[in-house]
């Protein structure tokens, strides 16, 4: 099942609802890269609230999504990482380096709009 990508103003929102296979993660990456160009989006929010595992492959792919989108002129924010997932990710030293992070969709959109000061995560 491919991840639906919604357009909201200048931003694209991809909400991942179930655990994705590696193939589906790559599909999401390609879809987003294509949609960014077509819709001239300025930002992407990837919502992982529903995920209870983010493995190294997914982490790398999410990083790749951000890097690709950046080359096409869009910022990416990853939102909705759950406490348990965050704990597991730091324990396994998974790196989300080029990604910005935010608490949820609302905060993520706020980050993209650049409102509310400089606070926020940058996924390092």
């Amino acid at each position: 099942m491919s991840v639906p990508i919604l357009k909201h103003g200048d931003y694209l929102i991809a909400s991942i609802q179930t655990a994705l296979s590696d193939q589906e993660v790559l599909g999401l990456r390609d879809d987003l890269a294509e949609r960014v160009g077509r819709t001239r989006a300025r930002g992407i929010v990837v919502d992982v609230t529903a995920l209870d595992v983010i493995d190294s492959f997914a982490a790398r792919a999410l990083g790749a999504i951000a890097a690709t989108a950046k080359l096409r002129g869009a910022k990416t924010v990853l939102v909705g990482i759950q406490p348990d997932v965050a704990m597991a990710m730091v324990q396994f030293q998974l790196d989300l380096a080029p990604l910005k992070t935010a608490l949820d969709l609302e905060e993520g959109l706020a980050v993209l709009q650049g409102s509310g000061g400089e606070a926020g995560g940058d996924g390092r």
Partner: protein
Amino acid sequence: MSHDTPSLPTSALRPPAADAELLPKLVAYLRQMRTDLREEWARRITGEQLLRVMTEEEIFSEVTAVYDNYVDALETGSVETLQAYARDLSERIIRRGVETHEVLGIVVLLRDVLARSLFLRYQEDPELLERVLNSYEPAANRIAVTVGVSFVEERERVIREQQAAIRELSTPVLQVRDQLVILPIIGAIDSRRARQLTEHLLNAIQANRARVVVIDITGVASIDMTVANHLVQTVTAARLMGASAIITGLSSEIAQTLVDLGVDLTMMQTVGDLQGGLEEAERLLGYKVMRDDAPSVTATA
């Protein structure tokens, strides 16, 4: 089992053989002597200054209950009822400060009192006396161990509960402004606590929608490599959830230790003290705290 044991030179040292017919007689005798024996026991307890936190009436009522349970356990050979009672009793007396040596002392006294009374009853017939004691001793030992172990287990349970309570109390996450929480850490940090702190913090970030977290470690006396790495992990995990972390209150000793250990702290934002940390957090969140020109705070004598 005892049949397989090679016999020793002296019959007194031989492992006691189970004597099924004798126990009922013993039990009947101990029931009959109930009033005298438990009074004697209570007297000995008071005499040895055990259970000083309890009144004589309290001691007597507990003594009666334990005595009956004890004799029941002798009769049935099942220590479960006694065990439950011993747990319950322990729970009550631990809170009043009764010590382990007192409980063990009491149980040994009861053994002593009963053994003496059996000795008096059967001293005319040494052979019977030996059989009586052979039946009584193993059962009595088992009971004594049961009561002692119940007490110690209960005590350990209380200690575990208190440890959990302290851990719970010692990791508050406080919201000081919209989207700003502080985590004051006081006392020693071990791996377990560090993990728990992180969990608490992450849940609080989610619950309070925090975007900035100030972690104050003024109250942490010392830090080692493991703890430093835990701090780094906490900060990283907070970032993953979209919150920036600021560490404040590193003492000069801790700062030096961290440098000496070579912990990579490049990604940690640190500010000297909690006040500075809060000011930095407010700046990040876009707050501006202004001072009113006409202060309304006046000292009242």
